[in-house]
């Protein structure tokens, strides 16, 4: 028994030693499981060639991403050296002490100008306008739209559309047109539907969808500096935006009540809908003949303008932060220095990553590389985001609790919904002492 125990201990010691010796030249980046993470792995393989340091991109499904990351943070764990975290986490992760302050790094490399301004504002800075930075913008992303070009360009459809609505059928430039087109193509008896939108209420999916309408209708979630929400989120423009989002829900395929990026891409690949809302990051799959039989007939457009001409889109995307519990912070900083260099950012874009690097974004090479890059480039200069305060998850919960029953369950009116949401958010901000 005793010898057995000794053997066991010796084995454990060897294991422990070998793992530390490996760890010395190894960096772990944690991200969600999606194509950009695979592109990043390809990119960082090149870092190993240059520096000899092996970088591993570890992933987990989106639904677990936040829970898993924060569980690790809360345990002060050093499993991850860097993390490509969601923009809403900035508040919680910076005030919680989980992220290393990158303000100096930003100043040293002039990152506030090297990266596109919107990405710096939303992926890196917290609190807003404070000049404190916590992440290096890595994957720019926003919500755009894909559509079926063959349906839109069918002469019979075009004539019928013009007859009914009095203008030509083309990718919508306004939300009013978007609603018309969705209505026009919604034909349940032909198994064809108008539009695919986000309705999943488990994290931020549906809220992002609604935000697309709210922002383009000229409304805001609130004042990000004073935390005032009454008169913003329940303003007439925001109420109208919500009403129209609900109208869009009426033109979705049956059972469209828990949908996010997977379902919305399926809507196009399965030939279900004329248009589909999704993050740009998921568009490469739509141009791939192997994953989309309609690839040749799929087009893209930016989130349309609202009634006042305002045009914005909900922000996705993430920045890379250094985890403050990692014992390889210096090594991580060296990696980031490599990552932000012009050549690497260009390579990142080539591999399929959506760079936030201003110079690369503006280059003709990037803008003409794919059918959606131009729409992406335009969108990245007019994005807005959700609250990034530490209590963002509670704000999301209230939004889901209020918006979902109205949109999917047909409960109450848009005004009642937004008034109730404003009251919930006010109470939350009061609870955390942000307002009197």
């Amino acid at each position, binding site marked *: 028994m005793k010898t057995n125990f000794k053997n066991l201990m010796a084995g454990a010691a060897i294991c422990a030693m070998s793992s530390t010796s490996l760890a010395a030249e190894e960096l772990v980046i944690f991200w969600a499981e999606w194509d950009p993470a695979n592109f990043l792995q390809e990119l960082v393989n090149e870092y190993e060639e240059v520096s000899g340091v092996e970088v591993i991109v570890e992933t987990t499904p989106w639904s677990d991403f*936040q*829970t898993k990351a*924060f*569980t690790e*943070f*809360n345990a002060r764990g050093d499993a991850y050296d860097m993390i490509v975290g969601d923009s809403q986490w900035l508040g*919680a992760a910076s*005030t*919680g*002490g989980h992220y290393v302050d990158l303000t100096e790094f930003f100043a040293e490399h002039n990152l506030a100008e090297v990266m596109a301004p919107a990405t710096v504002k939303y992926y890196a800075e917290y609190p807003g306008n404070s000049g404190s930075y916590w992440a290096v913008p890595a994957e720019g992303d926003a919500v755009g739209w894909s559509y079926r070009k063959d349906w839109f360009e069918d002469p019979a459809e075009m004539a019928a559309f013009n007859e009914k609505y009095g203008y030509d059928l083309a990718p919508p430039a306004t939300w009013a047109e978007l609603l018309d087109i969705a209505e026009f193509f919604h034909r*349940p008896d032909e198994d064809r539907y108008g539009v695919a939108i986000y309705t*999943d*209420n*488990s*994290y931020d999916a549906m809220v992002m969808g609604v935000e697309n309408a709210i922002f383009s209708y000229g409304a805001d979630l609130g004042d990000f500096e004073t935390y005032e929400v009454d008169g913003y989120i329940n303003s007439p423009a925001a109420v109208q935006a919500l009403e129209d989002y609900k109208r869009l829900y009426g033109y979705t*395929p*049956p*059972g*469209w*009540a*828990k949908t996010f990026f997977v379902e919305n891409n399926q809507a196009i690949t399965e030939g*279900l809908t004329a248009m589909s809302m999704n993050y740009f990051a998921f568009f490469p799959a739509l141009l791939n003949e192997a994953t989309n039989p309609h690839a040749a007939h799929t087009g893209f457009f930016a989130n349309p303008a609202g009634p006042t001409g305002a045009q914005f889109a909900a922000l996705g995307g993430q920045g890379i932060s250094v985890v403050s519990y990692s014992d390889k912070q210096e090594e991580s900083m060296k990696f980031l220095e490599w990552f932000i260099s012009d050549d690497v950012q260009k390579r990142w874009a080539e591999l399929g990553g959506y760079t936030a690097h201003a110079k690369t974004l503006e280059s003709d090479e990037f803008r003409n590389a794919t059918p959606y890059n131009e729409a992406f480039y335009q969108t990245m200069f007019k994005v807005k985001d959700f609250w990034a305060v*530490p*209590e963002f*998850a*509670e704000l*999301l*919960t209230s939004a889901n*609790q209020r918006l*979902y*029953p109205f949109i*999917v*369950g047909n409960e109450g009116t848009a005004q009642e919904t937004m008034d109730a949401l404003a009251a919930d958010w006010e109470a939350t901000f009061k609870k955390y002492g942000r307002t009197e």
Partner: protein
Amino acid sequence: MALSVIARLDPGSRAAKRGMSDLAIRNLFIIPTITFLIVFNIFPLLYSLGYSFTDFRASTNAPAKFVGLDNYKFLLNDEFIWRNFTITAKYVIISVTGQVIVGFGMAMLLNRDIPLKGLITTLLMLPMMLSMAVVGLFWKLLYDPSFGIINYGLGLGKFEWLADPDVALYAVALTDIWMWSPFVMLLSLAGLSAVPKHLYEAAEIDRAGSFYTFTRITLPLVAPILMIAIIFRTMEAFKTFDMAYILSSQPTTELIAIRLYKMAFLEWQTGQSSAFAYIVLIMVVAITNLYVKYLNKVKER
């Protein structure tokens, strides 16, 4: 009673031959269990009780502040939490009733001499052997309005099982009934086969009707074991999480376990969620106690 069983060791047993004393055996079996219970159950239970009176959030470095009964007050006054409780109550009633009816019915059907009885019983128990998450994923596909086999088989067209907020809870309960009726069946079958045959013979001689035989002989004698099945299923249904979480995200199917998970691990309101967990615990203990009291009454009869 329990002690007298433990204290005496059969002198002919292998343990006794190896020279182990009664006490050593008792310690060998009990101490690890007790330690395990204390470390993984009792300690967290007490620790979280402490947290439930604070505004602690595991996601920040801010120290926990004592807030007294604020968390409890907030939770019991929150309209959404009450909705979660109502939904859970409805879910428990629907799914447990369904399981008892279906499970007991199957047991009645199987409680006779039929060919391949063993095989049929085993096959019927298959759903129970699956993982909850897998069942959730499967049924989500089965319920799908566009390509699901349920609508296809029943000719329901594009009926929205999970997308319709009024139907979703029934759809989740139906899945639970499918999965756990075999459990009730199994226990009922054990109860039914224990009913003495001579009682039925006597009833037949007295020309009692089949309904009378069922209500006066079968049901009372199976009742205690059926109650045990009901207790188990109620407790399980009360804490249903994975299946419902995977099947639907409707607010009308947000059971307390799902709300609790969101509060604790998405919003990281550790203090408040500890309080919430305590409220749920007290309710489950209370309900179980009621059942156990009733069970004892039934047994006395």
